[in-house]
């Protein structure tokens, strides 16, 4: 990830944020693999929340 910002479909994507999102998502998934506490639908909720938090973060 050499470029920090890439433009996709008229939207700026910050690759540092992308990496942070990935880390949080994988940690969440890894935790759920262990606990099996969340269903697929609940996991989708959680992942969506992570993306929105990070994308909105200045």
């Amino acid at each position, binding site marked *: 990830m050499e470029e920090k910002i890439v433009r996709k479909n008229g*939207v700026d*994507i910050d690759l540092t*944020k992308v990496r942070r999102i990935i880390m949080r998502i994988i940690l969440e*998934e*890894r935790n759920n*693999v262990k606990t099996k506490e969340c269903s697929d639908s609940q*996991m989708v909720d959680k992942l*969506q929340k992570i993306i929105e938090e990070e994308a909105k973060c200045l």
Partner: protein
Amino acid sequence: MLIKKIELQNFRPYVGKQTISFSTDEEKNITIVMGDNGSGKTTLAQAFLWVLYGDTDFKVKELINRVVRDEMKPNEKKKVKVDLYLTHEDRDYIISRAQTYKRNYTTVKAENVEFSISYNKDGQQEFLKPHERDIMIKKMLPHQLSKFFFFDGERIKNMSEEIEKGKSREFADAVRGLVGLTAIMNAINHLKPSTTNSTVIGRYNRKIDEGGNAKIAELSDRINSLQQKYESLEKRIEELKDQIEYYRKDSEQLKLRIASYAPAEKMQKEYNKLKDEVAKLEKVKVDAVKTFLNYFNKNTPSFLAKPLIHTSLKDLAEADKLDKGIPDMHANTIDFLIKRGFCVCGTKLEPGSDAYSEICKALEFLPPKSIGVLINQFVRESQDRTRLSETYFEVFENSFRRIREIKDQISERQAELTNLDNKLLDVSEVASLKKRQLDSEQKEKEFNEELREKILALGATKSKIESLSKERDQLILVDERNKEYELFRQYAITVYEELKNSYDLQEEKTRQKLEDYINEIFTDIFSDALSIKVDKRYNIKVSVKDRSFEGNELEYSTAQNYSIIFAFIAGIIKMAKEAGKNESSSEDDYNVFVEAEGYPLVMDAPLSSFDKTRIKNICNTLPKIARQVIFFIKDTDGEVAEEHLGDKIGAKYLINIDKSFLLAEIKER
């Protein structure tokens, strides 16, 4: 995963409740369960499979102890039960399976099966819901891999075939799961592009559509429908690749088998040629016998009469009357001449004349009054017969020899035919193999053609989706409400793409690492002369390292097969054990996130095919790799294993069996 304890109740020879507590000590991680042949070691190993997957390899599926069954009263019920206590990902579980049997006067029938998985949460025993149990078992130890972790020495041949080829997609998925790629796999599935609310990107797609712009909605519908087409094409392409691979391998194997029968065609030609020759010789023999018999019938009497004829001719030659007769003259001829009055020479024949007297004298030597003429005729015929019989023996001998020669030639060819017949029995399936091979080639060709079509269609669909998406995305950005969703959607797409790339890279690395581990372990256990490759489906390919062996067919000994399987299982276990310890090695490497833990290895009769050196190698290698090793072993192997494992053994049990009643008892040693 660590197995802490197994409890058996009325399970096959184990009457009442019997327990084995396995060693969970990290240093002394080996449990040895010893017993004579037929003492119930395999049954014990099968108990693991039954409690986890509800199935066993027993031919007779009845599980209840025979003594318990025979003592049941009418309408009485008894339970067969196995409880497995284990730790998985820092949580203690009890997996329980019970089968109830009921006696109906003469018969005992199996009734319902109860299955549960429970764990302790804040002092309370929580039970998993039915749909969660399968997921949990799959996570703990997928059924596809169970036969490797619950290793049965007697099924080595099937395992070694399976390990080399024909493993399912589920098997590959199971391996990926065990070596720690499940979290990334799940994340990709939760994010992926979709038309429904079941994924993150799918949800943003729907939210944007709900913005109310009719044009966007229309474009979305078209994109969705193309997306579905794209997914179904992708799925079909994967299926086709599987099919092509299957038929390619099948065709290759059939070709090899057919090639091994190549001399058969030549043999078949030779066989047909010999059969023709035998038929011709049989005909020649029939003709020769016929000629011989004709000659025998015709000439044998003369030949046999030859001494008699010879004697007769000798006697007749000495008789003086024999020469006085006129050949072919009869008394009637003389009577005719006398009556006519003159002879054939013109002399008058008048009674009293000399000519008359002379001709009347001739009547004495002519038939019917004389036998001289008859004797003369007999002599001539006898001389003819004698002359012919002079060559009789020679002709007889030659004809007989000819018949014998023909018979010998037929016998020789028939012996060759019998020999070829036996060889051809083995190759009689060549024709069906050829047909199968051609069918496989045809299928491969058809699937390849379809694959090309589908790949082209996939490319075209992708382009169309991209072009429509671009158009749609531009419209979205005009709408303020959609702008934000589009931002999230683009982040989700970027994350999804990153993870997908990372997963592919990670999987490739994982497979390579697994291959390295398998080779290291195989070298430690068996030899460094062979090299083991792991393909994308986690199939194993063994080749000879030494180039001078190239072209020679690789031979598999039992010990070598065992070692390959040991190396494969140990390699996976090592990967699983180490995956959790890995740290991220580069910015784009998400290895830090993979989850993993140690796995047990339960082995039934694992050492019986090895020599002492290799037993030592295995005893040194396996305990270091597996988190926990459980050996079910016969007493003689057990002594050797104990000698090499020594301080690694954490628990020892002995199975005693009363063979008259088939009752087994487990005792700690």
